């Protein structure tokens, strides 16, 4: 693992899959990519405040997982959460307005890049303390069980989060009580500068599932259908009352940890090799190879995704700035 040798580049095997689903996945991954590409330029030109963490190269995990869920299922996200929100149908305009600290933002300008939230879409929050969303998703799963809602709760977190104690506490309880939870380790191979091998005594992270008696599987995280299929199976188990699943999706963080972090701790051959295993290109190649879509059709979708982000930026820039004192009405709820 962690070497260029292990990287898969083959086209996603689209045979037998629904065209609408596949094209929607393609569109969502493009939107997530374009959202972050444009953010990067906006930050470079100082048009946008704050900081951000890009998930460029990891889009197949977010989109593959969420595509296997129902709209009312819950997710929790992380500091690297834009792609999860895009996948969960949080409106792009609301997300972009939030990035610009506008009143129309998904969190009224109070959350920012690391705390995008949309309860209407089952997006319970992006929790930017590593690992802290894991028990919160588990609580949503417990709540679904108590309310008998049939919902599933998914927690996204990185390879670094498995070394927080809360990972253990939450997975133990979920397994103990057969809660309808799914845990997604987005193994992008680096917790800032630390590789998985440098931070986990057993680098096969999925194998930790055996400590809780739950299924643990590792999937190719740059193959959106592999992620989708694994999640679909996990969701089926969860809804049937058979308990949680741990899925380790192997992917790669193409960019640095945060905004301008250059990631000089990584061999450039490694980065290049993963760029050649781009999850969006792999899906495009699969769609073409299986004859599900033509290059022209894919180009139309590419143009639509770009236009959607452009519209979102235009909208966000036209929104009202947060008034300095707005925060005062958001500190506590009035009963």
């Amino acid at each position: 693992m962690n070497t260029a040798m292990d990287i898969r580049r083959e086209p996603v095997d689209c045979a037998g899959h629904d065209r609408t689903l596949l094209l929607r996945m393609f569109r969502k991954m493009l939107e997530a990519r374009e959202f972050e590409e444009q953010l990067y330029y906006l930050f470079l030109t100082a048009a946008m405040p704050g900081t951000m963490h890009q998930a460029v190269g990891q889009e197949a995990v977010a989109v593959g997982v969420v595509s296997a869920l129902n709209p009312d299922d819950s997710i929790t996200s992380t500091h690297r959460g834009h792609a999860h929100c895009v996948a969960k149908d949080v409106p792009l305009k609301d997300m972009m307005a939030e990035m610009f600290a506008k009143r129309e933002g998904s969190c009224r300008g109070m959350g920012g890049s690391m705390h995008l939230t949309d309860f209407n879409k089952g997006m319970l929050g992006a929790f930017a303390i590593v690992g802290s969303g894991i028990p919160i998703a588990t609580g949503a799963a417990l709540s679904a069980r108590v309310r008998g809602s049939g919902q599933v709760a998914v927690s996204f977190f990185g390879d670094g989060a498995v070394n927080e104690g809360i990972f253990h506490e939450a997975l133990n309880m979920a397994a103990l009580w057969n809660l309808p939870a799914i845990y997604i380790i987005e193994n992008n191979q680096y917790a800032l500068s630390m590789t998985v091998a440098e931070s986990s005594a057993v680098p096969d992270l999925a194998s930790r599932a055996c400590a809780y008696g739950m299924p643990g599987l590792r999937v190719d995280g740059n193959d959106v259908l592999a992620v989708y299929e694994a999640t679909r199976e996990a969701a089926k188990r969860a809804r049937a009352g058979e308990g949680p699943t741990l899925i380790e999706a192997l992917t790669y963080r193409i960019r640095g940890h945060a905004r301008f972090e250059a990631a000089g701790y990584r061999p450039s051959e490694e980065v290049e090799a993963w760029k050649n295993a781009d999850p969006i290109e792999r899906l495009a190649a699969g769609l073409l190879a299986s004859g599900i879509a033509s290059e022209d059709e894919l180009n139309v979708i590419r143009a639509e995704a770009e236009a959607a982000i452009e519209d979102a930026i235009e909208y966000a820039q036209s929104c009202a700035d947060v008034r300095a004192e707005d925060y005062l009405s958001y500190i506590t709820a009035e009963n």
Partner: protein
Amino acid sequence: MRQLSQAAAIREGIVQEMRLDPNVILLGEDVGKFGGAFHITHDMLDEFGAERVWDTPISEAGFTGLGIGAALTGLRPIVEYQYLDFIFCAMDQVVNQAAKIRLMSGGRAKVPLVLRGPQGATGRGAQHSQSIEAWFMHTPGMKVVMPSTPYDAKGLIISAIRDDNPVLFVEHKLLYGAASPGGGKALSDSAIQAIGTDVPEEAYAIPLGNADIKREGRDVTIIATLLMLHRALSVAEELAAEGVSAEVIDPRSLVPLDVTTIAASIAKTNHVVVVSEDVSRAGVAAELVATINDHCFYDLEAPVQRVAAANTPIPFAPASERHVIPQVDDIRAAVRRVLSS
């Protein structure tokens, strides 16, 4: 008159809310078949079943996070910490998550969550004796509730459960009024008096942020919570025999704080003593003194006197514990100081 122990009053409030609202659930260590280390959740598993009363593993951070996730998705969880000292295991979940989610979501989220448990120095050494409320007063987004009588405890726990924010509900071991396993007799402080013990059977809510004047007076205002409230009352009673009339105010919640009632009292007495069982440095009493200076400075005829615990972990030796925690003598001396300066 219907007298209940404070423990029974808290229990009755929780049971009544659970009967009323199926979304109220309990999470915590030994809250189910054992009935809670201090018997607050006694028999609740039998009445409400394991889908509403969750006996958790020893995972304070984990079950606090579960409570937050459940609160975000329609339930109103009550999380019990066996001793409030253990809440520090869950600080990230309480401080970084529960307290901040509402603001981070631009007011779209609500986190109706009660975090409750016992505190107070009772001969158990440094890790089972602290008074922890100042940490959470320092955490915007939280409410902090401090019941000192059975009547208040029932009305305040009902309000805490109905509140849409994370509420820390602080109970004092010596006020439970019942024997506790492993802890010896709880009723061991001669200052604890049967005040406000008339507890109505029906449910009632005491709004948070409403101080209660536990004793009216003219010469000096004493502000205190939990066990210290009882010690303050005992001092007031003694001083009355000497012709000193002390007014004793129980804030009942520190966040929100009823500054209006406190200021009105100070405008009348012009002298103040604040008493708290937590450590003095950056503690509850320090915050109350600052608030009084902000609002009442020109009503004061003497510097506010602060009586709080020494700045030390709480030692086991009973003589040392008594030395650290404010006693009746300390409060009486502070009243004399403020009146003589």
